[in-house]
């Protein structure tokens, strides 16, 4: 495998993000085209310049990207639809990055778009007997991991709740988040139980949303100051023997390294940097404890260190390593196929220094991580 970082440099030159939330009668082509038009304006680019589209979505049915591009205007270019659960737009981003690095295209659009089905979402990435046994309740699958994480790390129920409190505090400064109101520890601890030990406010809310990013090769960059370089983009699936959601861990052959650590290690190698070089992180807080073990698996601290660091404010907006500066999935909401794209838009906004009240001073390099059913783990590092 040739490292992409040794091929042509790739830059993000424009982003477009809709305000995420639940809307009446909204369609993927409404929010998808809104995000695309904003990204084009941002990159000072015309639609006819775009040479290929990679679109991530999960619940939009067949040819979701085409449904959106039909609204924007067909130009005959290839449109590739990517379904990779909660890493869909991260996976689409990686394909776009590869296609420019390999000099196949110069200007590519990445779209993440999702209008979520209303009510609980049926996760169908299970065998029929598992579905009939009721094993497809993702909060319960995360709850099983949480039980083991709490035992091995010493994290308390209060620690889990503090992740929600931190992220909702950041989300209050994000005009594009679904929830823009801070929340108290008591509110989290008293919300109703979904699957023990997880309560409603330990689980991220869903949302409709779209995110668009325009990627270019160096010579197509119009304003270098606003072009943020893709330092790495990786994607992994499960390593043998590892337990996650539908997967149960092997007692005889547990892996030395899990798929999240693997995706992070590959990203650091590709970017030629380490966790200590990262200024801001978008971690995967689909449930609040997953942000804690995510930070550990991404190499920002050792196993069991995330809860005490969280309590000390290390991951706060004004802490040493701000995590989920836009409020994360907890505030932004989770439109599955658009989530990675939303994370990347926040990193770019922070690197531009345009994040307003939630701006992290001097942010030069950021990492985003998304993961989900499959499993998939997608890590992207962007730098100034």
């Amino acid at each position, binding site marked *: 495998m040739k490292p992409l970082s040794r091929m042509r440099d790739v830059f993000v030159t424009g982003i477009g993000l809709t305000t995420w939330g639940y809307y009446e009668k909204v369609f993927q082509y409404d929010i998808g085209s809104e995000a695309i038009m904003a990204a084009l304006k941002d990159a000072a680019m015309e639609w006819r310049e775009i040479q290929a589209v990679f679109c991530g979505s999960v619940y939009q049915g067949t040819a979701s990207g085409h449904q959106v591009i039909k609204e924007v205007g067909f130009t005959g270019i290839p449109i590739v639809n990517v379904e990779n659960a909660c890493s869909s737009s991260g996976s689409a981003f990686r394909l776009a990055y590869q296609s420019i690095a390999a000099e196949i295209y110069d200007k590519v659009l990445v779209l993440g778009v999702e209008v979520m089905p209303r009510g609980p979402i049926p996760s169908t990435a299970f065998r029929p*007997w598992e579905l*009939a*046994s*009721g094993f497809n309740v993702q*909060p319960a699958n995360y709850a*099983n991991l949480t039980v083991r994480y709490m035992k091995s790390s010493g994290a308390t129920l209060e620690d889990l709740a503090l992740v929600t409190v931190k992220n909702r505090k950041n989300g209050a400064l994000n005009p594009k988040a679904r929830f823009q109101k801070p929340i108290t520890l008591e509110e989290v601890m008293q919300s109703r139980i979904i699957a023990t030990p997880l309560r409603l406010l330990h689980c991220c809310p869903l949302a409709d949303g779209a995110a668009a990013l325009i990627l270019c090769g160096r010579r197509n960059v119009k304003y270098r100051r606003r072009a943020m370089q893709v330092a790495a983009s990786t994607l992994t699936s499960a390593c043998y*023997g590892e337990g996650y959601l539908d997967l149960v861990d092997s007692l005889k*052959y547990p892996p030395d390294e899990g798929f999240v650590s693997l995706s992070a290690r590959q990203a650091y190698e590709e970017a030629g940097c380490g966790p200590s070089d990262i200024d801001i992180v978008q971690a995967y807080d689909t449930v609040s404890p997953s942000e804690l073990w995510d930070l550990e698996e991404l190499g920002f601290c050792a196993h069991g260190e995330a809860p005490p660091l969280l309590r000390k404010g290390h991951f706060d907006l004004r802490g040493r390593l701000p995590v989920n500066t836009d409020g994360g999935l907890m505030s932004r909401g989770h439109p599955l196929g658009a989530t990675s794209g939303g994370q990347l838009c926040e990193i770019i906004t922070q690197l531009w220094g345009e994040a307003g009240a939630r701006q992290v001073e001097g942010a030069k390099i950021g990492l985003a991580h998304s993961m989900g059913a499959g499993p998939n783990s997608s890590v992207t590092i962007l730098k100034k």
Partner: protein
Amino acid sequence: MDNIRNARPLEEGLWTVADGGLSLLGHRCASCGEVFFPRRKCSHCAHCFRRTLEEIYLGPKGKIASFSVVMIAPAGDFYRGPVPYAYGCVDLPEGIRIKGLLARDYLDILAVAMEVRLSTEVLYVSDEEIPVEAFVFKPLKENRKDEQ
């Protein structure tokens, strides 16, 4: 075990009653020793990739590694059992951890590291009025205060 006449299993081939006892049906790789449940459809071992899978019986003893009591109905109408219900990871002495339902009458006493035993339970009655059974893990008698 609920000895319900005419009951049918959730899915054929997950468990059997052999030598008077209930067992899950799994595969063991004769080369690397890895154990699988349910039996694999693919003919090689998912760990060492050799075609040396042998059928084995798993259970009935187990120990809870983790569990969650689920307070919401799963989406998608695949699950037709009662709510709340519980499922978790159970370690079997054959060297495998599996996901399984936990018996519905004991949701309040479930605990990590609790010894459990394989059983079956009617999960729901189908539209054709046939009881549909699932395999479940039940706390051992000594853990069940109600039956002491």
